[in-house]
């Protein structure tokens, strides 16, 4: 019998007559090619089953290992050591949840170094791809592979963007023993989950600052990567391994004109939304938009909702508050976070602050971050680009003008500033419009910062 990796699956040909492969884990008969087939992720279990069954088979070639001598020593802080031990105890499978700035990438590097396995690291964006390549290059002197941003280069240690891995796992799936997933909360919801099902890697490490609380997603993630084996929140590390921070909420008013416009838009939206709530008390926001798009009244309500959001994104009071904060902190490194790119550009034009958005090319973004590090730029404004993973050292003031994605986004944003340095104290301003939908949004997003959860083993 022969095992072959075939585009994200394992094909078993010429099985012995006395072996019932229908019993083997994950194996199905594929009438299209007249052979048995299993998802590549079932390979470790399948191999164990075949060995137990004493079936002779020609195995797939072993992945090429990295050269251990080319690694430098990776030192860890005590909580990182504890997290790595928890993962080892979990049979090298599982999710580690640590706040932004607490050194998740370093933990991943230690996992690669200590296990000596060939490893594929998946990261959500091209910006993070570069960041990981830099960090791994500082500790591993051998070649490092890269999939993403137009590059397709394999090595026993490879970094790939989620998108590129999804497209190329049919060729990469048999080349790694360890898969590390940065910002692992992007998986488990169905989108691109196949990436993790099409690889034979038995060892799997997921990293996140914002673990999912959805039971369905958690269960699926446990299947794909493993259960959460270690978790610390910002509150566990602030003041020690993370910088201390003050959170200041500035409650702002709308101008009379803005209030009038807001009230009429809110009335349009609220009546349609209340009607929907009566029909479907447990309906989600997606259900509501789906339902509303069918009728002219519903579409008007959705349009009103968008206009409300646009109105609140950068109100007159927010403009004035931001202006005075920028003057007050003109000698600090400031990050401004907005709900959308439109507001980011408005702020950029008004206050001559460099915007960092998805529209700005990668080389320019790199250049901007470099200038920010050196102090040639002191303030950046961004809607989403700074949300996740990007290492921006030494910022000490954040101004949250608006947000669209709730608790997870807020934790990631605040995390940008918490990388520790001597005597550093961070100030986070939130600009919130009184008597508007922003009040509830602000309350909900702050919960992610204060919830304290114990480490679990």
């Amino acid at each position: 019998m022969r095992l072959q990796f075939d585009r994200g699956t394992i094909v078993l040909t010429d099985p012995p007559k006395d072996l019932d492969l229908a019993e083997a884990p994950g194996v199905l008969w594929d009438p299209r090619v007249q052979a048995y087939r299993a998802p590549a992720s079932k390979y470790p279990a399948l191999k164990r089953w075949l060995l137990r069954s004493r079936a002779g088979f020609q195995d797939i070639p072993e992945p090429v290992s990295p050269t251990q001598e080319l690694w430098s020593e990776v030192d860890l802080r005590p909580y990182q050591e504890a997290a790595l031990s928890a993962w080892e105890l979990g049979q090298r499978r599982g999710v580690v949840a640590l706040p932004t700035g607490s050194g998740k990438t370093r933990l991943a590097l230690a996992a690669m170094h200590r296990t000596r396995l060939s490893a594929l690291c998946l990261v959500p964006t091209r910006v993070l791809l570069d960041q990981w390549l830099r960090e791994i290059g500082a500790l591993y002197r051998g070649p490092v592979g890269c999939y993403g941003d137009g590059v397709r280069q394999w090595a026993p240690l490879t970094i790939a963007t989620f998108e590129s891995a999804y497209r190329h796992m049919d060729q990469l799936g048999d080349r790694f023993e360890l898969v590390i997933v940065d910002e692992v909360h992007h998986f488990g919801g169905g989108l691109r989950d196949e990436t993790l099902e099409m690889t034979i890697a038995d060892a799997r490490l997921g990293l996140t600052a914002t673990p999912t609380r959805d039971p369905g997603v958690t269960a699926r993630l446990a299947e794909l990567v493993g259960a959460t084996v270690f978790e610390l929140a910002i509150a566990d590390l602030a003041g020690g391994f993370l910088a201390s921070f003050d959170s200041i909420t500035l409650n702002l008013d709308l101008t009379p004109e803005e209030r009038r416009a807001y009230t009429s838009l809110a009335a349009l939206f609220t009546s349609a939304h209340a009607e929907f709530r009566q029909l479907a008390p447990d309906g989600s926001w997606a259900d509501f938009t789906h339902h509303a798009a069918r009728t002219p009244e519903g579409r008007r309500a959705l349009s009103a909702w968008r206009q409300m959001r646009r109105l609140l994104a950068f109100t007159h009071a927010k403009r004035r508050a931001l202006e005075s904060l920028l003057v007050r902190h003109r000698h600090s490194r400031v990050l401004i976070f907005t709900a959308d790119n439109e507001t980011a550009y408005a702020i950029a034009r008004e206050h001559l602050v460099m915007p960092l958005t998805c529209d700005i090319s990668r080389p320019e973004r790199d250049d901007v971050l470099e200038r920010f590090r050196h102090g040639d730029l002191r303030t950046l404004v961004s809607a989403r680009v700074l949300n996740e993973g990007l290492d921006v050292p030494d910022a000490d003031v954040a101004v949250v003008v608006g947000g669209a994605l709730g608790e997870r986004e807020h934790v990631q944003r605040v995390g940008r500033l918490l990388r520790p340095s001597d005597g550093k104290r961070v100030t986070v301003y939130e600009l919130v419009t009184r008597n508007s939908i922003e009040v509830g949004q602000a309350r909900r997003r702050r919960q992610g910062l204060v919830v304290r959860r114990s480490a679990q083993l």
Partner: protein
Amino acid sequence: MSADLLSYSVAGTLAVPHFLGEHDHPWLRVLLEEHERFIGRPQRELEARLRDPLPCESPPRKLRLAIQVLGRLRPSERKSAVPPRRARAHVFGEAARTSAPSQAILSTVAASLGVSLEDLQDSLFADLPGERLVAAPAQPLSAVELALRCNLAVVQGMLFRATIVRIEVEGNTRVLVRHAKWRGLICAVGERSGSASATVELSGPFALFRNTRLYGRALGELVPLLAWCPRFRLRAECVFHGRRLTLQLETGDPIFPSTAPRRYDSLLEEHFAREFRRLAPAWDVIREPEPIAATGTLIFPDFAVQHRSDPTRRWLLEIVGFWTPDYVARKLALYRSVHVSSLILCIDEGRNCAEADLPSGARVIRYRRRVDAAAVLRVIETTPCSS
């Protein structure tokens, strides 16, 4: 394409796409005229205009689809006195350095770059998508073409949600199968049905385990190729909002075609066909004759040559060119397995094929650089046809 742009109705287990047709041409023309009006103006102005309804009746979902399709085709250009990246580096760098008011900073930078204040402000974000200028398309787009392109987008959007596609097809099968294999799909050949010269079932390896969108794009790419098949019937199993529905397409559906597939795979084949036609006016050269079914796959002979006045004198001709040894071995094994009578194999001398590898009964003509059309003619004129 997002699901809310896919316009279809459900009839039992069928998903029936709402194609744009002649009745949509009037509002599509208005849309194209609106676009024309904005040539030379920033894209964001056009986008803002298109958020409001057109001055004529237009189905909202189809309109949004047409706007998106048009947006993909719409070229844009950038005009700026200073390269925007340079303008940003100077302006924001200067702003970080001084505490002067914004206008003063802009004036200083404009003077240092030798441009006016307005030009500097216009240049600052001139490269961003919304600020780029709407440009005239390279070739004028008609309402008819836009409708066909929208239909293609709808069908591809639906196939993006497909897990398996079955196509009964007559002619041009080779292009379909080749494309599918190149995109990593499994092509299983089914029983022929009716007059179809082939029935192929296309799906990805992983589709065995669950509904996946992994192969949706590859499956969608087959649609414009189908337009070049004289006859086809497609059935795709799709999943919409967790519900399994079947999409059916067939010859004559109003879908934008791909560019015409190449008639010949190589100059070698093209030269042979031309030379043979010149030498043998009594014979027809048929490019891509009907495929031969062989253990779950199809063989596509390069040519059939058939006598004009006696169709029973028909030979299949395969040119075995300079492909990889594996490919040649697989091809010869397939021919051996199906025992085709009246087969001529033209084999590149450089391939060094052993006699034992060749299918029994096949006439073999070795060639170097060019297939000798006269040699082929000699074989078919002097050998009785066994079919």
